[in-house]
């Protein structure tokens, strides 16, 4: 199980690309999808690389990203 996981609210995303550029682990990318406002929304293309560092969420101007962290017990079990 990856250490972290992001959930992007597609309707909030304005496709600015700041999270895509900022993620230190290359997790995020633009998807093929456009939301109801016509914005090309971001997605986790490599979710397995996510570390729950929250860099993406800290810089998303639309507060569209939630970040989840793998609990300790779970990460030990998975290792």
């Amino acid at each position, binding site marked *: 199980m990856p250490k972290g996981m992001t*959930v992007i609210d597609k*309707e*909030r995303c304005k496709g600015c*690309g700041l999270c895509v550029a900022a993620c230190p682990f290359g997790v995020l990318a633009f998807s093929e999808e456009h939301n109801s406002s016509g914005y090309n929304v971001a997605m986790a293309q490599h979710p397995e690389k996510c570390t729950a560092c929250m860099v993406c969420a*800290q810089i998303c*101007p639309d507060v569209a990203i*939630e970040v989840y962290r793998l609990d300790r017990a779970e990460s030990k079990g998975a290792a």
Partner: protein
Amino acid sequence: MSPVETSIPAGYTKVFGRPNSLSDAPTTYCPGCHHGVATRLVAEVIDELGIQERTVGIAPVGCAVFLYRFYRCDFVQAAHGRACAVATGLKRANPELIVFSYQGDGDLAAIGTAETVHAANRGENITVVFINNQIYGMTGGEMAPTTLAGQHTTTTPRGRDVATTGYPLKISEMLAQLDGPTYITRQSLHDAPHVAKARKALLTGFQNQVEGKGFSLVELVASCPTNFKMSPQKANKWLVEQALPAFPLGDLKVRD
């Protein structure tokens, strides 16, 4: 907005989500605009200090004019530039309130300079959040007092000529010279570490008011990708290379 309660597998704990003081309304800011980050940080600080029930924000004229929609707390929308005067009235009439203004450079540093300077000089016990994005956003990218020398805007198409339009106005440096203010700081929103520092500064700015310490102003150097006519990433780079040399970061005045 769309529900985000998608499948979170067992064993994961939420470590970042929308602060409670932020409403569900989508912001009216452009894609990549740093206003969104600043707006969220203020909501997080309100949550952290547990002051949502007694906080009143003063919305400016400019891109943040609809601020009252974005928060779950009371708001007054002030006439252009008058936010610090309105904040003064509210705070003096009811000192129990936590009163903050949120203003851009067109609002605070142009038409509202007098109100800002005098509120600071009186040491009013209020918190001012000042977004310096070096341009007029809402009205179409005109030169602001904070526009950099040589910067291209719709009213300085050949670049700002300081010989005829003056120099970028350094509000925080000006206010830091006064005896009145308690806390004057300048931070930036161009990357995650600086966002974390900006959050800390905002926390101090609000905490000062809770403790009755007096006037705090947190200037946040921000980008306006739409009117810079740059991608959000390029605008961030431009902030670092062009804006920060003119607007150096750090605390300009700290009084205990």
